């Protein structure tokens, strides 16, 4: 992978991105190995299945909990969660197929390991809480930053970061089947989007041909939001899901409700009755089908216990962020005349300044080779290669 990322070794940004990726990955692997060694030593076996079956047989000890925490941390690092996300954004410095491979394949490794150790994770309150807090925060924050990006590949990259956060959030909530599906679906989807990123111009022309988006009045968007929540309520009812018995499902339910609301808003903005109906029907059908899928997967793969009540505050925090994100989207795209506050915009544009720290660390730990020093005449020296 390092070879692919440094495909063009004279590109300094490519090199530092590769270094960052290398450092974060190796550190994550160190955590994973430590966690695994602890588990292996504790249960005196290196077979994962064996470890899991023994763990389920005996009550969790502090040692096992810390090992689980290490594994969860390693997954967070491998999935480019805030604030260790910088390398994921900067791998655009490598050719498009390499970006696609990273965003569709490599990024999933952390999630894969986590899912493999699912029984342990769902037993560990600390690990679950960590996953909910970091994954959920990243999901909301990175999605907001993705909205603020100005280039197609960076918007895709930040959205990967957000999607991985959502997947880890689902792991933290014990919704492993959905997390699995999320990982697979996202891999295929994102690979396709990266490889097709060159269509951006054609899309833009089409969107411009459709004309400007109509602004909505506040009651309209409020109604759409209510409709979204109601849709998910109907979905819960249709599949006989009791929110009190499935508390873990409430957070994805909220996301589904707000997403449905967003789709309905987009339908309303088209200002053509037929489209309002079709988008409305499609989003309701999708929401109900989504919950059905969850039920179905639960029946096939079995369910895990949700996180203990102590993770509630983390879940609440994430819920607030998601509602904020919904509001931000309405503010920026639906209610014109109410601009996004300048300070918030600047913060999003800067990616919360988080990566600056990581870049500095990467430069310090692993300086670029002297050969990649930019001469004060970067143009003419590189020009020679064309001759």
């Amino acid at each position: 992978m390092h070879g692919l990322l440094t495909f063009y070794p004279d590109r300094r940004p490519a090199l530092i991105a590769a270094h960052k990726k290398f450092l974060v990955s190796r550190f994550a692997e160190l955590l994973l190995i430590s966690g695994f060694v602890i588990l292996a030593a504790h249960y005196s076996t290196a077979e994962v299945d064996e470890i899991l079956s023994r763990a389920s047989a005996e009550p969790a000890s502090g040692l096992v909990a810390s090992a689980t925490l290490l594994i969860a941390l390693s997954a967070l690092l491998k999935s480019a969660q805030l604030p260790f996300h910088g390398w994921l954004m900067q791998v655009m410095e490598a050719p498009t197929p390499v970006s696609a491979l990273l965003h569709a394949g490599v990024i999933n490794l952390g999630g894969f390991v986590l899912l493999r150790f699912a029984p342990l994770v769902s037993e560990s309150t600390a690990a679950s809480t960590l996953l909910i807090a970091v994954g959920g925060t990243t999901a909301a924050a990175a999605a907001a930053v993705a909205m603020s990006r100005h280039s197609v590949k960076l918007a895709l990259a930040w959205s990967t970061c957000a999607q991985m956060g959502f997947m880890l959030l689902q792991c933290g909530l014990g919704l492993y089947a959905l997390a699995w599906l999320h990982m697979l679906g996202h891999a295929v989807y994102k690979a396709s989007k990266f490889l097709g990123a060159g269509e951006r111009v054609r899309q833009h022309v089409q969107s411009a041909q459709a004309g400007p988006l109509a602004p909505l009045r506040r009651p309209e968007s409020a109604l759409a939001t209510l409709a979204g929540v109601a849709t998910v309520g109907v979905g819960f009812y249709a599949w006989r899901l009791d929110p009190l018995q499935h508390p873990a499902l409430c957070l994805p339910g909220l996301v589904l409700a707000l997403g449905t609301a967003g789709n309905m808003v987009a339908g309303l903005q088209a200002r053509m009755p037929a489209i309002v109906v079709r988008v409305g029907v499609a989003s309701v059908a999708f929401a109900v089908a989504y919950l059905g899928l969850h039920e179905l997967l639960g029946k096939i793969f079995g369910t895990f216990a949700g996180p203990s009540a102590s993770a509630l505050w983390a879940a609440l925090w994430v819920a607030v962020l998601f509602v904020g994100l919904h509001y931000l989207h309405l503010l920026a795209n639906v209610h014109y005349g109410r601009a996004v506050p300048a300070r918030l915009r600047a913060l999003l544009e800067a990616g919360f300044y988080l990566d600056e720290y990581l870049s500095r660390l990467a430069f310090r730990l692993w300086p670029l080779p002297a050969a990649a020093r930019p001469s004060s005449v970067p143009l003419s020296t590189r020009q020679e290669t064309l001759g």
Partner: protein
Amino acid sequence: MNMPAATAMHDDSAWSDAIDAATARIAPSWPLDRAIAVNPLWGHIGDDVQTVDARLRTLVGTRFVMPAAYYAERWHCGDISERDLAHALDHAPTFISHGEALAWLTHPEPVCQPLPLVSDFADAAVDATRGWTWREFIVQLISERCAQHFDAGQSGLGQEPGVGLYSAWRESAAHDLRPRLAMGMRCCGKATAILPSNARDAITAVLGALDVGAANVVDYLTALLLSVNGWASWCAFLRWEARLAGREDDSLVDLLAIRLAWEFLLARHLGMDTACSRLRTAWADLPVRNAHHAAAAQTAWVWHSALEHAYRNQVGAVLRARGASPRAQAGDAKPIEAVFCIDVRSEVMRRALEGLAPDIATRGFAGFFGLPLEFAPIGAHRTEARLPGLLSPTLKAREVHDDVGETWRVTRARQHALRETRAMQSFEKHPLAAFSFVEGGGLGYLLSLLGRGSDSAGEAPGSRKGISTEAGAHLRVRFAGVNDIDRLAASAAAVLKAMGLPGPHVRLVLLCGHGADTANNPQAAALACGACGGHAGDVNARLLVSTLNDPAIRRKLARDGLELAPETHFVAGLHDTVSDRVTLLDGDLVPASHATELERLAQMLGDASRVARIERAKRLGLDVAVTESPERLEAALAWRGRDWAQVRPEWGLAGCAAFVVAPRSRTRGVNLQGRVFLHDYDWKSDAEYKVLELILTAPMVVTHWINMQYYASTVCPNLYGSGNKTLHNVVGATLGVLEGNGGDLRIGLPLQSVHNGDRPVHVPLRLNVYIEAPQCPLDYLLARHPVLGALVGKGWLHMLRIDSETGEIYRRTADGWEAALAS
């Protein structure tokens, strides 16, 4: 610290002139959805090309000729002969011996260091292995700011409140933490606050503080603009567009102010006095440096001239061989004529068509067919400017259905489809809906990933949602808003005068535009028709055809002395330059009386396509086995346009090197290898040389732009080319591409358009314009139009005159006309 009071001592208007002079040097770069070729050095054409080369060496450290190794290879493989070299040495402004020239091939002048900016002084103190350099950092910050400011639809945060670029920067820079976090620069915010709030004032103030010397200011400002050349070119486009509409746009001055403000901030960072004195000392060298580079580059230009001479002679010999221009005889009137765009890709097709069909004559004319259109596709909220970048639209056209009632229905259906597509995109684009969507629907993309080229992102080339094939067949192009037949007739008359009337025996005239619709290609417009503003030429061709076929217009034209024979009928066509298919448009409107000719034309175009494809397949390096079967070859070429992984659907205009303005008889039957623009012109029927004037001021400038776009993208790929296509990242939905994550906006052609991986495929030669016309009008027009005078006199293109009596060729030099070919 306050801004020094030195400002007041300088004449503010002198600074203002310097700002204007420096910004005038930046050429525009069009957005991706209507990308057209442009000479990136258009702002420098007032100066000699070698002076500009020296300037680039001094200011950016890049040169405007190829590296020595390139010429050495050409010399050793025989592309440059002893005679070419001798000719170039003879014409060199200073004496260079044959031995010196040969020695240069192995020992060229050393790589040049550009004059330093304050940011370079700051970089001297930075360990580049342990952090970003200031140069990188500043470009990155400015690039992000520009992307944010000009974003045309990528960001979901909506447009920034409407203030100027400079004000927006000044506002945000005060709170930006990045200079501190990434570069360790403190109190950047306070420093920006003391800068004047107006861009021009800020430039004046900082120039006063830095004091680079009054004589050097323009070049210093140019160097700053060139350090963010991509975004500067974007701002120059905004200015270009504004000026065509009679407005002004100051974004470029804003950008300059931002870059200069960074110089000021860094000078403060380093210590104002030291920085200023170092800058002053370094820039005092400017005239010496320029002179030194100009002298050092002489040999390079000798070799470049030799290379150009080789090609010029080769083409010149062919043109001269025709001798006196044959007079048109009544006997050789052909029943079918085909008018193609002057584009070099038409040359291949025209040669093939004429070779196969003795009854078809071809002609070359600018592909927008003289109609500067603003076109509204049916059901679309946005119009398209289908005209050369030099003009602003004067005519409006729209797409309608044959049946007036249906027009409304199709409009509505199309608009519905467009809006529904966009609304449905919310599932994947809404920041929250996207989470559930990839779970529920992500796997569905497996099919698109495996099954085809690109995903469902856009409509497949050529198809439009909401418009059925049946309805599509009845869509026509009409003038909009103009019912004034006089005005239409006047437009038609102007075009006919420039294009030439078809003879009285001509029964069918094809007006053939060209286009190329390529999948997953942000720079697709660069392959379409440049004269149609980066669109296909079908609309203009169809509109002119329907106008010229209109009996009322014909009556009007006849009254003006432009009589079209009643049996002459026009038909439109579109040449797809990727697959080399020619489609006839509105063929159903051709009367039954002309069915035989129409059928003949269609058949011969099909045959010609097959021949043209084989020629192109060789350049593209297609497998021989594929080339042998016409069907497989056609399929293989068409697939290149739809293949989402194809970085080189076609070679475009790579190789373009000459423009021949002469009757077709001068070039008919000659293989010009798809490298020559061909414009038909007969000076004998051009009474006041009005047509010649038009050709020199419009098509010739356009061909020069195309030629220089390819030239500059080949010789300065890092400054004037857009780099590697596999790294391209569309910014602001349509503004341009970045290479990778960031850095400056990249303008010009990608590496893949001029280079095949081993060597440059485009041979960078300045355009050779061969004109068959008497000497007097040419001299008159060169004197009358300063732009033409500059292009020819300052060495931006070579102008050659073909004498129609003898076929002899003369080249315009500084001293007048000289025989171009040794006898």
